[in-house]
């Protein structure tokens, strides 16, 4: 009888009856061969590997993280409640110490969903990791969390949600935004004025292979985690960086991902992207599961795996070495920058245009942050779309000081402008979520 070294939980939710559309790559059979592989390799017969049914998240769980216009139910389908519920289930089982680590192999993904949600973007509607993390913070008192997003695309949604949160370290390693959707995630994106250094982006050039990924893991990610000392490490384990993935250009492998998981030792891993249904997903997922469980994964290999054919060029290696050095040097200056911001401004503005590719919506957003000396600061967001809708949303962070809290309520009460189709308040200190003046 095979045993795991580490009691590991698995939620497996392939949503065989759900797809974005008939021709979309985020489709019913995406995890079919992965399920076959997991069953055929007998992974579920191993002692210490436990399979769970996903929970369902509630509307309140979404309100804790997002501002959805017109409301939560209109921007999601039931599959999203289950997908986020899968991540939540693993999180809860880890917190209850019934398992040491867990992997939520779920569809649909979530890391492109930002704080404000007008619809679907990047195949995502709600941010499944953020919803899980905030649930665990609310119900288990978890404080410092590190999210390591190894999906091939920049996790811009997760970055947005935690941009102003110094207690959440968001590290994303992805294919350089100059060459791939969503076109962001550059190393100068380091977090809001009161949270500088809590966002770290590592954009890698196309055709980076195992050496490159493992190099940044060892030289950048692991040292930052050691310095940050998180209560929980969450891995957004997207697998579209595989050498066979049809919509990206990287050269990662099952062996590489298993090695990465084995060194990173996340408490919770959540599936994100990955569209090579036969060539990649089955092998990478088996590799990740075995690595999480502390088992020997050396025999996990794709049938056409030839490491020499996919090796990165020496130029790429040198580029990545220089990049790593720059990122670390910048990161050392984070505390100093936060102080500088607090000393030099009372409020900070940020303006952005956001495109929802899946639902074809253009959003224009203006953020107004109180640069508070005592906490990360209350935030107001004014957002309008090319569908003629406009909303106003106030976010009071989890550890907001009393002054920021009151300011948040003042902004919310005072907002009576008829041009807004909805006015939202998210009070994380009291887990209270309000909306007024809603016009659908």
């Amino acid at each position, binding site marked *: 009888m095979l045993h795991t070294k580490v009691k590991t939980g698995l939620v497996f*939710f392939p949503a*065989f*009856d*759900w797809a974005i559309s008939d021709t979309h790559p985020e*489709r019913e*059979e995406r995890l*079919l061969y992965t399920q076959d592989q997991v069953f055929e390799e007998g992974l579920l017969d191993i002692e210490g590997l436990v399979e769970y*049914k996903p929970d369902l998240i509630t509307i309140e769980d979404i309100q804790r993280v997002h501002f959805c216009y017109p409301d939560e139910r209109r921007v999601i389908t*039931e*599959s999203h409640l289950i997908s986020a519920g899968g991540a939540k289930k693993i999180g809860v089982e880890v917190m209850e110490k019934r398992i040491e680590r867990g992997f939520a192999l779920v569809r649909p993904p979530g890391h492109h969903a930002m704080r404000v949600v007008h619809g679907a973007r990047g195949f995502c509607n709600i941010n499944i990791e953020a919803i899980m993390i905030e649930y665990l913070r609310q119900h288990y008192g978890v404080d410092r969390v590190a999210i390591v997003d190894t999906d091939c695309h920049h996790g811009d949604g997760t970055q947005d949600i935690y941009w102003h949160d110094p207690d959440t370290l968001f590290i994303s390693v992805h294919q350089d935004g100059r060459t791939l959707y969503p076109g962001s995630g550059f190393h100068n994106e380091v977090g809001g004025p009161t949270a500088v250094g809590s966002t770290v982006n590592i954009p890698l050039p196309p055709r980076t292979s195992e050496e490159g990924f493992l190099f940044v893991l060892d030289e950048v990610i692991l040292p930052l985690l050691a310095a940050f000392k998180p209560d929980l490490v969450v891995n957004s384990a997207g697998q579209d960086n595989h050498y066979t993935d049809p919509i990206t250009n990287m050269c990662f492998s099952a062996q590489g991902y298993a090695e990465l998981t084995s060194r990173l030792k996340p408490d919770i891993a959540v599936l994100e992207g990955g569209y090579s249904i036969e060539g990649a997903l089955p092998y990478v997922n088996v590799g990740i599961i075995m690595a999480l469980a502390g088992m020997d994964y050396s025999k996990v290999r794709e049938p056409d795996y030839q490491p020499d054919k996919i090796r990165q060029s020496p130029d790429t290696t040198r580029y990545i070495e220089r990049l790593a050095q720059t990122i670390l040097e910048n990161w050392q200056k984070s505390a100093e920058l936060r102080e500088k911001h607090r000393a030099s401004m009372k409020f900070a503005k940020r303006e952005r245009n956001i495109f929802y590719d899946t639902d074809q919506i253009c959003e224009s957003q203006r953020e107004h942050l109180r640069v508070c000396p005592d906490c990360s600061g209350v935030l107001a967001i004014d957002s309008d779309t090319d569908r003629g809708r406009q909303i106003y949303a106030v976010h009071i962070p989890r550890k907001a000081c009393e002054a920021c809290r009151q300011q948040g309520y003042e902004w919310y009460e005072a907002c009576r402008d008829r041009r807004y189709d909805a006015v939202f308040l998210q009070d994380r200190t009291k887990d209270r979520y309000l909306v007024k003046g809603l016009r659908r």
Partner: protein
Amino acid sequence: MNLEASIDYPGQTILSGPAASVMGSLPFAAASQETLVLDIGGTTTDMAILIQQVPLLDPVGIELSGHKTLIRSLKTRSIGLGGDSVVRVVKGDLTIGPDRQGGPMACGGPLPTPTDALVVMGKYPEGDRSASLRGLEPLAGQLGMPVEKAADRIFEQTCREILAAAAGMITEINSKPVYTVHEILEGYQVKPQEILILGGPAPAFAAQLATLTELPVRVVPQWQVANAVGAALAKNTCEVMLFADTEQGLAVAPEEDFSQPVKRDFDRKGALKLAFDLLRKKCMRQGASPQEVEMETLEELQFNMVRGFYTSGRNIRVKVQVKPGLIPEYREIAAGLFAANGVS
């Protein structure tokens, strides 16, 4: 299955004891409800679930003494708690079973059992009451209560533990992972609305169990022979799983040693037809008669296979089974048998 077939498929006979009890209780279960069946024996209590008189099967194959198998069987749980389990007081706590060391002291056995408690309480007609008292008195002393109260305690705890184990089995059934949105949202949750009991001491246990649960508790008529009746009247049940790949142009049922070429337009309907055909033949080989072969679909899935940017074919998977239950001809006979004996 018949004797000849069992020689060819001996593995299929494991755990047939508990299964026969379940089948024997079938005619008496409510036709439109979910039933928890408890077979309370000497050494063990075996439990199972009926859903509208159809027994629940184990989805992947039963586990025997911690060893996993792929042998299709009813979903049953056996616990080491029965009428003859040894009753002890360990560190001030009452423990019952899991071992059995001979019959109750009332019938000459060496150690006190729940049956002895029943005898002391006057709820069991046979046996030597003084022997039961001899066995229970020391336990009553350790528990610090009069012997009648101890007997009460022993019997109540036996019933509580049985109900707790049943609740655990039901929770396990309801937590089984499912893989489609539909099943998560509409997925069946088992919630028994009645309890059926069989086995030697069934009537005595029924009364006590009724006080511990809100559900109606009934005893299977002729409870001592329900197991044998069940073994005699149970239908053959088997399943077939068929895979088809229209890109390769092949349909396979590997467990049946079957494969057949198919055309590119082969679909779910064609797969089900093939599967039902194979199922009927398989069931007849195991000794069934044509009338008892009532078939149903367990799973039908169809996926597109994409190569590059083109749909190259369909991947179809179907699973069909013969609905478990009693041989149709004998359903009425069984009911008549019991009615003729003045039992309803």
